Structures are given as structure tokens and as C-alpha cells.
């Protein structure tokens, strides 16, 4: 849109580019954290999990920095129209990214615990697929942000349905595992939380995509966010 032309005050442009650059940097860190956490779970790699937990600090610091910078821009520049939406969206996106980073850290924490226990077959592949899907969504959402591509952002929002389906399947699978063998319950609980966190990550990525649409068009997307998550209604299958 028209935010490609320069401001008369070039320092304003530099400020805006600064915070957007920081968002991209934060997004990169979070993407890496997702992939590393999934990897560490799959490979039962405690060192990698530790790295993910330590890396969350950098993500939190970036969020704080972005908020400070955004507040300064609002105070000093009184941005309006597209500039205002840029600043507001940056603040929202950084909050979402920070939550995603926290979930990745939580995943890594639970991985450290799971490593002590015996592995449960079958789930890791699905979990890794889910994490990979979320990471792709995040990458696309951030790309849509850089290129101001509302179409791509809307597409990302739709893909959250797949993530939700994956979670539904995993939920039933863990129920089955837990009913089969009560010794699996601890591990399955942790794995379930990991799956839940990944599904929540997907929701946050959707929120980021919605911010992109708001930034580009000035309105939040009209369609309802797809709610594929129906576990609240799932009854356990009590058959033998």
C-alpha cells in the first residue's frame, strides 16, 4: 500500500523499519525454536532441549525491546492510518511470538522429562509433522507480513484447521494408549500437553495472520476463524 513511499521525516521511516526488522528477527528465532524443540523430542536429545530453553530468554528480551520502541514511536510520532496499524500490529505480533516461544520452551522442558521414560511408539512422527506444519504457517505468516500479502495471510488462517485436525487425532490416539496400558499415562500426559501446546501455537500463528490482514486492509478478517478443535465434545471410546 502507500506505506512504501517515504515519510518526509526520514527518521520516522528508520524507526518503523527498525521495529519491523526486530519482528522478523524474533520470528526467525521462534521458528528455529519450534523446529529444534520438535527435533529434540524426536531424537530424545537433551542437549538440544536445553538449548531451546536457554534461547527463550533472547525471545523475551526482544519482545520487551519491541514494546519499548513501539511506545516511543507512538509518543513521538503520533502515527495515523497505516503507520498506526503498523505499530499496533507489531505490538500484537510480538506478543503472539513470545507466547509461541514459551510453548516451544515448554515442549523442550517436557522433552527433558520424557527422555527419562521409555518411548511411546507412533506419536513422535505425528507430533513432528504437526510442529513442522505450524512452523511453515509461521514462516508464511511472516512472509505475508513482509510483503503485505493479505491473500497469503488468509490462506494461513485456513490451514489452522489442519493443525486442529491433527490435534484431534493425536488426542484420540493418546486416549487409546492410556486406556491400553496405564503405565503409559505419565508419558502420554506430557505428550498430550505437547500436542496441545502445538495446537495453541497454531492459534497464535493464526492471530498473527489476522494482524497482517488488519494491517493491509484496515479491518479484521470477516470469516470466522475455523474451529476444528472438537475435543471438548469427544467422549472416550469405552469399548473394549
Amino acid at each position, binding site marked *: *500500500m*502507500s*506505506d512504501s*513511499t*517515504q*515519510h*518526509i*521525516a526520514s527518521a*520516522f521511516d528508520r524507526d518503523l523499519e527498525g521495529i519491523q526488522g526486530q519482528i522478523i528477527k524474533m520470528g526467525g528465532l521462534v521458528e528455529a525454536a519450534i523446529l529444534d524443540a520438535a527435533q529434540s523430542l524426536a531424537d530424545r536429545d537433551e542437549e538440544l532441549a536445553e538449548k531451546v530453553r536457554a534461547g527463550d530468554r533472547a525471545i523475551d528480551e526482544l519482545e520487551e525491546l519491541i514494546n519499548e520502541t513501539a511506545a516511543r514511536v507512538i509518543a513521538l510520532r*503520533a*502515527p*495515523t*492510518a*497505516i*503507520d*498506526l*496499524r503498523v505499530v*499496533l500490529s507489531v505490538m*500484537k505480533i510480538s506478543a503472539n511470538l513470545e507466547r509461541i516461544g514459551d510453548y516451544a520452551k515448554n515442549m523442550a522442558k517436557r522433552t527433558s522429562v520424557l527422555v527419562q521414560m521409555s518411548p511411546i511408539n507412533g506419536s513422535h512422527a505425528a507430533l513432528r509433522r504437526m510442529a513442522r506444519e505450524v512452523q511453515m504457517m509461521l514462516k508464511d505468516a511472516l512472509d505475508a507480513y513482509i510483503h503485505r500479502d493479505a491473500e497469503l495471510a488468509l490462506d494461513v488462517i485456513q490451514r489452522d484447521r489442519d493443525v486442529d485436525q491433527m490435534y484431534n487425532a493425536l488426542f484420540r490416539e493418546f486416549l487409546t494408549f492410556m486406556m491400553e496400558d496405564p503405565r503409559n499415562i505419565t508419558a502420554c500426559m506430557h505428550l498430550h500437553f505437547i500436542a496441545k501446546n502445538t495446537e495453541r501455537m497454531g492459534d497464535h500463528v493464526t492471530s498473527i495472520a489476522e494482524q497482517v490482514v*488488519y494491517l493491509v486492509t*484496515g*479491518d*479484521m478478517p470477516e470469516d470466522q476463524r475455523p474451529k476444528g478443535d472438537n475435543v471438548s465434545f469427544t467422549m472416550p471410546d469405552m469399548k473394549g
Partner: protein
Amino acid sequence: MYDAPTPETRLTQNTLKITARGVQVYYGDKQALKDVNVDILDNTVTAFIGPSGCGKSTFLRCLNRMNDTVASARVEGEIMLDGENIYDKRVDPVQLRAKVGMVFQKPNPFPKSIYDNVSYGPKIHGLTRSKAELDQVVEDSLRKAALWNEVKDRLNEAGTGLSGGQQQRLCIARAIATSPEVLLMDEPCSALDPIATAQVEELIDELRASFSVVIVTHSMQQAARVSQKTAFFHLGSLVEYGDTSHIFTNPSDPRTESYITGRIG
């Protein structure tokens, strides 16, 4: 992010006060305003913004026929005040200006006493019948202009002895003393310091309960703070007109967006 419904949006239900259709203004051969169509609502503050020379002050001065004093100015089109065309041949501009008051950029009180400044309008239009009534009108106007407490003990002192902000409020009191229906303000705060500006803006907000206010301003923040409707003028045309909150968060026209965000062009 959702726009919570602000009290201002309910004001679009207000009545129309001034409607302009197809207004063209020429200074000699040069066309200063092209085809302006706009509706000014009652009990609303409408802001005219735009770069220098875009025609906003020219259009403002059409609304009370002050352009008549410029020999080379020619106005075409219709401007209706409460359904009556103010450029009709039967209209006396003097009578119009009692209904449509004006406050100028540089405070210009008469070199008379404060009392005489405010009472001049009502006197020449014969709006009061006795001295007591006139005193009351003066007091009411000064109270509405938030100046009464500062000058009530020195009504006979010269109006020019007040500070800049007080002088501008005196000019506002003078303009509202004739009980106008519309108040026109041409960059009223540009000669004032920030505190005086804030006082005048507060005053404008209070005044809109009684009149319709049209304000021309160079400061976009002031337009955003003070008005409910905003019109953006550019190179003699009205580019966009709408609710202030809409114009400043998501304007429809790219020229408006460029101007508001301070981009070149």
C-alpha cells in the same frame, strides 16, 4: 482490532446545517475551488485540513460571504444554510454574518474595552432591548468563552491588554455574543502557545452543544482531537469527507493517507 462504537458515531444522526453543492470559486481567471460538495452537520465540529493553498480557507470564507470583500473573487454554486441559499440576491451579507460568526487566525479584538468588544455585535443587530439585557448577554458570552472569571473585574479595560490566549477567547466571546448558529474558525490556535491552545480546544468542544463549528487547521493532531467530521482538501478539490476516526485510522483515498501520515506528495 475492533473500533469500539464511540459516542461520535451516534452524531451522524444530527441534522444538516449547511449543504454545499457544486461550489466553484475564481480569483480573477484562476480557479481556487473546484466542484466542492459537502454537508456540515449541526452540533458537530467539522475540520477542514489540507496543505497550504488547497482552498480550505477560501471555502470557509464562502460560508459567511467574506469573499465578497475581495474584488476579484467570484463564487458559483449553491450553499444552503437551513435550506436557504446564502448567495441568493435577496440575502444581505450583514444579516448572514450575524448568523454565521467568524474567528480569525490572529486575535483581533477591537481597540475598545472588553465590554464594548463583546456588546458591539448585539448592539448593532438590535438584539437586546435594555442595558440589563445587554449586560447579561455580555456575561453569558464571556462565561461560555471561559473568560468571565478572569475579566469580570476589569470589563472596562482595553481588550488589547489581555494575553494572546485571552484575546482569542475574547474574540470567540465576541463572535458568539450574536447567538450565531454556525461558528467559523480560521486556524484559531496557530498564534497561541500550547496551554492557550488546549483551553481553546476545550472551549470548542463545549461550544458544539450550542452551535455547529467549522474549523480550518494546519495541525492534524488538532483536527483529530477536536472534530467529529473531517474534510481533506487538496489543490482546490474536496478529496475526502468522513468521520474523523475513520479518516485518521483508515482513510479511503490514498492522497488523504499520504497527507495524514506525512508522506511526500
